[in-house]
């Protein structure tokens, strides 16, 4: 038996995928996560932190920006520097770019419209967050966002590529990566990246919504990989 691990989910006013995430963690990892209120000034012990999807602070000004000013995010930044794994999904990804834990920015979708649909993703680099997938495996998760259009300048993009920091790209079912399978205008179809140290992951699609018998089950392996890395 392994020692019980601690998984934390930060909850902001306006988070709305916190419950879905909590259930996916419980079901797939057998761990009841700690729910951390955004005003917490001291996150004591945690083996991994999730930033859930939703509309923290109504997504006013820019999605994710206001959340970066909360006490809990200072803690997330501190812990990330110590190597604690951090995963931001959707709004969580937006928060991570806004507080500079991840490169780039998430602009409004090129269509200017919110988009909810099942998309295919290619796992273009493997790392501990995705250890359960084969390299270049195509998986299906839903997306639901209006600001998922990932932008990064060309020099940084090259760095991301050279360091294998790009994890997920939008693709066709067959694995073709091009404009017609890009749901939001994201640079190079990027859907998820990690930081240089590879302990911070951000992704727009929702693996926690792909773990049910009635949806795609591809998210289960994502959570299994997380279980393995703890």
């Amino acid at each position: 038996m392994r020692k019980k691990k601690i998984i934390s989910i930060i909850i902001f006013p306006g988070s709305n995928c916190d419950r879905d995430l909590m259930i996916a963690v419980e079901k797939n990892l057998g761990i009841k996560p700690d729910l951390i209120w955004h005003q917490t000034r001291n996150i004591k012990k945690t083996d991994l932190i999730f930033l859930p999807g939703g509309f923290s602070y109504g997504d006013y000004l820019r999605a994710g920006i206001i959340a970066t000013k909360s006490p809990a995010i200072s803690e997330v930044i501190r812990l990330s520097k110590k190597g604690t794994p951090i995963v931001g999904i959707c709004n969580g990804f937006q928060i991570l770019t806004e507080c500079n834990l991840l490169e780039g920015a998430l602009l409004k979708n090129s269509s200017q419209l919110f988009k909810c649909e099942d998309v295919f993703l290619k796992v273009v680099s493997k790392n501990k967050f995705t250890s359960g997938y084969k390299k270049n495996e195509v998986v299906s998760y839903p997306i639901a966002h209006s600001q998922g259009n990932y932008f990064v300048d060309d020099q940084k993009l090259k760095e991301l590529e050279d360091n294998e920091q790009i994890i997920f790209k939008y693709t066709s079912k067959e694995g073709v990566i091009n404009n017609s399978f890009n749901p939001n205008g994201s640079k190079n179809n990027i859907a998820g990246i990690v930081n240089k140290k590879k302990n911070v992951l951000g992704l727009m699609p929702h693996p926690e919504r792909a773990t049910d018998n009635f949806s795609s089950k591809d998210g289960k392996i994502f959570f299994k990989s997380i279980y393995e890395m703890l």
Partner: protein
Amino acid sequence: MNEKITGKIIQDHNLTKSEYNLIKKILGRIPNILELGIFSVMWSEHCSYKSTKKWLKTLPTKSKKVICGPGENAGIIDIGGKDAIVFKMESHNHPSFIEPYQGAATGVGGIMRDVFTMGARPIANLNSLRFGDPKNRKTKNLLRGVVKGIGDYGNCVGIPTVGGECFFHESYNNNILVNAMCVGLVDKKKIFYSTAKGIGNPVIYVGSKTGRDGIHGATMASAEFTDDSTNNRPQVQVGDPFMEKLLLESCLELMSHDAIIAIQDMGAAGLTSSSFEMASKGNCGVKLFLEKVPCREESMTPYEMMLSETQERMLLIIKPNKKKLTFKVFKKWGLDAVEIGKLTNTGTMELYMKKKLVGSLPIKPLAESAPEYDRPSKKKNEVTTHKKIGKKNLKRTLIKILSSPNHSSKKWIFQQYDSSVMGDTILSSEKSDAAVIRVHGTQKAVAITCDCNPIYCKSNPKIGAEIAVAESWRNLISTGASPIAITDNLNFGNPEKKEIMYEIKQAIKGIKNACEKLDYPVVSGNVSLYNETNKISIMPTPVIGGVGLIEKLENAKGFKMIENANIFLVGKTKGHLELSLFHQMYNVTQGNPPKVDFQKESENGKFVKTLISKTKGVIGCHDLSEGGIGLCLAELCMSNNMGVKINIPKKFQSNPEKWIFGEDQSRYILIIEEKFDMKKFLNKVVDINKIGIVKGTCLEFTNYFEIPVKNLIKLSNKWFNEYLK
């Protein structure tokens, strides 16, 4: 404040002379302007239902499953165990025409508050939309704004929007309809009502600060439009979905403690209607100290405070010893709650501003003596000339239907809605006849749908309304649900016109009849009248929202097909083409809608429901409605990207259009497992016939025509994409 009440002021408040006289009689004096304003909103059509109350009372509202019928913020039904479902539909038609984005958004916000006010967590939103002719210059912007408004609001709050309908017709050119439905889940033992109780108990205000938004919104919603009503600008209400989310979470948290005696959202007519309704139900009085009302703008008058329709506000009566706890919970969510008054035993609404009594109104008489009209009605004399329609190319007709605004894919719309948040959406738009939402943490699910075919209603409001009810019932059956109850949203023109009043009365009669026959009561609803501009009225549009229970989630059915499955048709086909899509495609718009035989409806429904829930044979199911068998099969093919081979029965081989496009009621298409032996289940009362199999890549009517499914998909996605490019 001491403004003299002139005839003009009375008229501006949409009060008639006799209504004003009644006010004077109730008060025993002349009202001041504040009091007059309060009467006017309380007695507006929107709040008092004065033209329809008499008829609404005739609707069946009870059954073994009904926990709470009309009269509260929303209706409640029992779905077994500790669970109950709260639901209602409401319109935001006029505001959405003036400002589509905000109007639709605040409509969604309002209906969600009606649901969570009762202690329920909203689990699904639906919407029923009617727009004008796509070629009308306003339509595109209205469509864009409304859809974005609905999406942005529900998405932000984190409630999945899972279904609805969208229909274009020139009669809605200047009166679009935006009806929003919300469904919530509540623990039967933790339902909250709006009856104020306990003399001395504090009245608590929480939510957005009051601004000058929507003053007279309730009276506006009851007044006919003229073109210059677009100048009624400052009335626009802006929605704040983030505030709604905070209210939702904080109210549900407070409800888990034993603190709340009564709670009500401030909807139409804001502080006025919420405080009057709560006090009236509890037979008590209220003292409000208006200077305590949180205001967004400076120097707001009592009149403005009482009539403001600022969104995202709630009014609570709490236990006095739970005040601290109440403030603490709201504070946690960043909300300022304020005590703005107390309950009294006087039966009077006493309004104070800085210690001065500025208004005093008897609550019960004001609420209970609201005028109730039995308006005259008369059937419109129409000479119907039945145009004959010659032989038409079947394939081309189907293509025409699929590329028409009303029957092309609504993907552009529903992709803007987050349909999967909360993790319990099993089936949503274009995957089934009704949305299927799991009851959180259980193996049960609810099925939800909303429907209305205004073309039928225009020709015969009674039968049209019956069909709307029957169709919603059928939609629920198709998913494997037992239909339980409905909510309705009655959208009509000006009730002061005899022909319109006739439509209203007939439609209510139709709903009544259908609901009684199907044991499918009405538990909540809404009426929206005066939907006309420059004397042109909308088509009668009684939208029906139905809710049913799927006892075992794994039995839920959608549009699924598998290769080699058999295709069965349930129900009798006569080939009713009058008012069908087939006729509409050739601009023949006269005739009668098909009749519903409720005996058959019931038998066929029970048969399908039993087959789905008691056997493993059913793979998918789709009810038949507009467009008949042809459109139904096309939808099944597109949803699965698979083909079917269909044999038209001998009887119809000389007029196949009747079989393919006839719109006879009470019918379903079943996709049945290849090896499943149907014989055992055939009975004498239900017509059931095998019509084909799932095979290939085309929709094929053997010996007649075929279309590759990939072309169908392309055609179906075409209209919206081109229109909104």
